[in-house]
């Protein structure tokens, strides 16, 4: 240990040369490219959205952040209450036809990079609710990066799915998937914010809302 410290000090002073320098670099320096490092950082500091749809919300995210399962081990303990601060949305439960536009809007409001997990049978395929009120699979209206089967999945299954998602993020996150759902660049920007180009519709809605508040 002491030996290593001394070598690090010598390295910083520029005293290491030749074979010693080679050995030091081999031991202490990891070569990578920026994309890989970025993916690694993204995968290990995820901000999930505090969001529950139905009974699966008890398994995740509620029990996932408790001490027994502890999502913090995977770097995702900071649940955000606003989609604008979140990276990941877990659809935990059946999506009713009335909730679907709300879910899609939440997803649209999240800033890139963003991921969606469909958790449980209901949000993946409608599950047992094969009826008029429930959307038969959330991937009918938004891009889903990962499906976790189960009714409900055990928290361990969700954690396993989460690590799978991390691997996906570190590997090849964009497979043209979001473009197919028109889900890229859908954020509504507040006026005066960075990259402030609200679409005319959003600007109009915003003005209208402001008018209502003033009145």
């Amino acid at each position, binding site marked *: 240990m002491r030996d290593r410290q001394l070598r690090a000090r010598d390295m910083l002073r520029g005293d290491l040369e030749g074979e010693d320098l080679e050995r030091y670099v081999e031991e202490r320096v990891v070569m990578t490219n920026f994309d890989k490092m970025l993916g690694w950082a993204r995968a290990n500091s995820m901000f999930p959205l505090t969001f529950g749809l139905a009974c699966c919300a008890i398994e995740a995210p509620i029990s996932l952040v408790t001490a027994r399962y502890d999502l913090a081990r995977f770097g995702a303990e900071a649940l955000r209450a606003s989609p604008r601060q979140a990276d990941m949305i877990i659809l935990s439960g059946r999506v009713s*036809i*009335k909730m679907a536009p709300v879910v899609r809007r939440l997803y649209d409001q999240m800033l890139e990079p963003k991921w969606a997990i469909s958790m449980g049978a209901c949000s993946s395929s409608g599950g047992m609710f*094969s*009826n*008029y*009120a429930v959307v*038969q699979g959330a991937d009918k209206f938004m891009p889903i990066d990962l499906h976790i089967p189960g009714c409900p999945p055990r928290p361990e299954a969700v954690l396993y799915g989460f690590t799978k998602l991390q691997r996906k993020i570190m590997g090849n996150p964009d497979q043209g998937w979001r473009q197919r759902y028109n889900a890229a660049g859908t954020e509504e920007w507040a006026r005066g914010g960075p990259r402030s180009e609200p679409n005319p519709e959003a600007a109009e809605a915003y003005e209208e809302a402001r008018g209502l508040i003033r009145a």
Partner: protein
Amino acid sequence: MPDGPGLELIRGEIEQDHPGAVLDTSFDRDQPALVVDPAQILAVLAWLRDAPGQGYRFLSSLHAADYLPAEPRFAVHYELLNRDRVERLRVKALLANPTEGLPEIDSCVELFPTAEFQEREAYDFFGIVFRGHPDLTRILLPDDYAGWPQRRDFPIGGEPVAFTYNERNYG
């Protein structure tokens, strides 16, 4: 609960004030029920609420039902409660399905304000129109929804699940 004879007494008293209003009574599984002419439903409900000695002042539930092969097909159920004696009484109004348009019945919001949302729900799922309701719009389904999904002849919807096992053995 009014017992069987008690129910007949109530029926007799209603008959005195509103002849022909009560079509039938039933006392199935200790639950008293009056089957009422829908045209006089408000008179009967008001009588049960206000007549001395009755006091069914609390509408604990209002819901609709569809007994499809039966005729008349629809029913609106009013579950009344006397909170002093803790007695429950069910009032049913049977509604035929008209050949055109939707079945109609008078709204009881004036008598029981709690009925407002429950009548909207009955309208939402069964398409029963409550005449005189202040705001009869859909309450749970999206506003642009088409159809009355809790009717028995409404398709269930969803998607059939194609299991490989069934496909292989019976397909």
